[in-house]
């Protein structure tokens, strides 16, 4: 049964000047609905590259990426943008909030690129309340702690009810206590049916995932499934 996202014999080669770097070498991966997947591996193993391909931010040099059974190589840049807006949520290590916008405005921003949300302001407030940030919603990012900023980023990622949430080292800039708080949020979201793919060095998070994919030198070295 095809997953919501599938990578088939995917290769990604980057050119750095005259040197070619094989970031991914023949990756095969199926992501099913409702899964919590963590991708681990040493630096330079291709984790972020793989996440970018899953998130339709990049195209493979060879191989195919399927999103909801559609071959994305046939999609235009606008179509990929629309899929990202409607179906995919991103969370980044450095939060990537817009500094000039408040927390609420940052969350509302996600609705600007899709027609899914009828009342972005109300939904933004609801999501921030869910993240326990109701009292902070009118603060700018530089007035928020790291943990608070990352929760705003998660709220933003959830704005359009995505099919999958992709997180790239979401606890990389957080202390351990805040990281555990974030993990609880991820677990709760996954228990509600959200598909999660998390790139992480944090073993606590990795071990909570239902499937752990180990990458090395652009290849899947090992894969561990728990309870599936």
């Amino acid at each position, binding site marked *: 049964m095809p997953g919501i996202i599938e990578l088939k014999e995917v290769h990604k080669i980057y050119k750095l000047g005259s040197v070619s770097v094989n970031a991914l070498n023949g990756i095969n991966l199926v992501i099913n609905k409702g899964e919590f997947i963590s991708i681990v591996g040493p630096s330079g193993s291709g984790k972020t590259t793989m996440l970018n391909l899953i998130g339709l931010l990049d195209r493979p040099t060879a191989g195919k990426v399927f999103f909801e059974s559609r071959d994305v190589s046939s999609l235009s*840049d606008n179509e990929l943008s629309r899929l990202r807006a409607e179906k995919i949520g991103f969370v980044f290590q450095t939060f*990537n909030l*817009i500094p000039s916008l408040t927390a609420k405005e940052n969350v509302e921003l996600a609705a600007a690129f899709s027609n899914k949300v009828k009342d972005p302001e109300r939904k933004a407030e609801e999501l921030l309340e869910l993240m326990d940030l109701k009292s902070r919603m009118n603060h700018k990012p530089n007035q928020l702690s790291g943990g608070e900023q990352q929760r705003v980023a998660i709220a933003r990622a959830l704005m359009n009810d995505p099919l999958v949430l992709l997180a790239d080292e979401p606890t990389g800039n957080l202390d351990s206590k805040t990281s555990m708080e974030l993990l609880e949020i991820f677990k709760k979201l996954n228990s509600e049916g959200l598909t999660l793919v998390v790139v992480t060095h944090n073993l606590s998070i990795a071990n909570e995932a239902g499937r752990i994919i180990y990458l090395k030198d652009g290849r899947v070295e090992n894969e561990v499934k728990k309870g599936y």
Partner: protein
Amino acid sequence: MVIMGIILSVILGGVVIGVVNGIKEYYTSSIYEAGFNVIFVISGKTGVGGGFYPAAKPLIVSDVRELKNLPDIKAVSPLFIAGVFRFGDNVTYLIGADEDLSLSASLTLYKGRFVNSNDSSSQAIPVVLGYNIWQYFLNQSININSDLNLLLEPYSLTYGKGNPKSVELHVIGLLDKRAQVPGLGIDPNNVFFTDLVHAYKIFNVTDLSKAYVDGAVASTPSFQDLDNASNEIVSFLESKGYSEKTDFTVISQKDALRYIDRVFVQINNFINVIWAVVLTIGSLSVLIVMVITVRERYKEIGTLRSLGARRSDIMILFLLEASWLSILGIVLGSVIGIIVIEALKQYFEFIKFVTFPVILQTYAIILPEIFLFSLLFALYPAYRAARIDPVQALKYE
């Protein structure tokens, strides 16, 4: 920096172009004020731009009076400069004319009447005073029927110079202020108008039919008749033995306007070059700042793309920002420009031509140009922002 660049463009454009427009407006309105349908016939050769050569065969009163019979001429008055009254540094002229003067020269009275044929027999010289004379130069309260005793310096281009002498003047009219026609040398506000008999009497000339005139002023029924009337005058005078090359010059309001247009076309061409440079510099500030802004916001662009922004969304975002900065600069620049121009008027005489309507007229042209150029120069950085690879942008520190 964008706003400063645009403010400077608005100020410079307003001042430079505004001054040129203002001066052109002044000259054009002066010509229109001189009368919509007035022709000046000058004995001798001159041009609207200046320079004068005496006639080989000067015009005479009887020939000039016959111009009235031409089909497109409504009224004619010969003009004879009889001398000069001085008031300090101010030079005023005693000019003889016919009773048709008011019709032909579009002069309007503030009070009193113009000269008529009954005035030729009076003892004192009947005069109608130009505005500056009765308003400023005489330094006393002047009214109709006032009598004046002034020192006249007789001077005629054709009859020569006489010894200064005291003359009795009787005021019969006061003229409204009126614009000087550029290129005609004499400001009508600095003239004592009298009848031809008294004017020629100063040089003991009694046979007016053969008396030499300095020129004439004629009017046509309408503005459209000016060209025809000018041609008729030239043909008539040539038929009387005068040469258009050496003896007379016909200047209509249309000729003056054509001359002004020719001069200002050249000035405008020069100003356009300066304006293009100012506009480019102002717009370059937009380009430079936008390029820097895009570079500083790489990560933000990557984030927006990850949220689903299309390339066109990114491009529109940056163009909107450039538009907003441009509009802010335009508004601030317009206000500051007006303040600067008003301040400059205190120090530079010629800036007074930049009236508020001229400023508005100038802004109506330059402000849309500034806005469009800003957008044009913002296009490239906005396009580059839209083409950024989101993966590379997200990695950018």
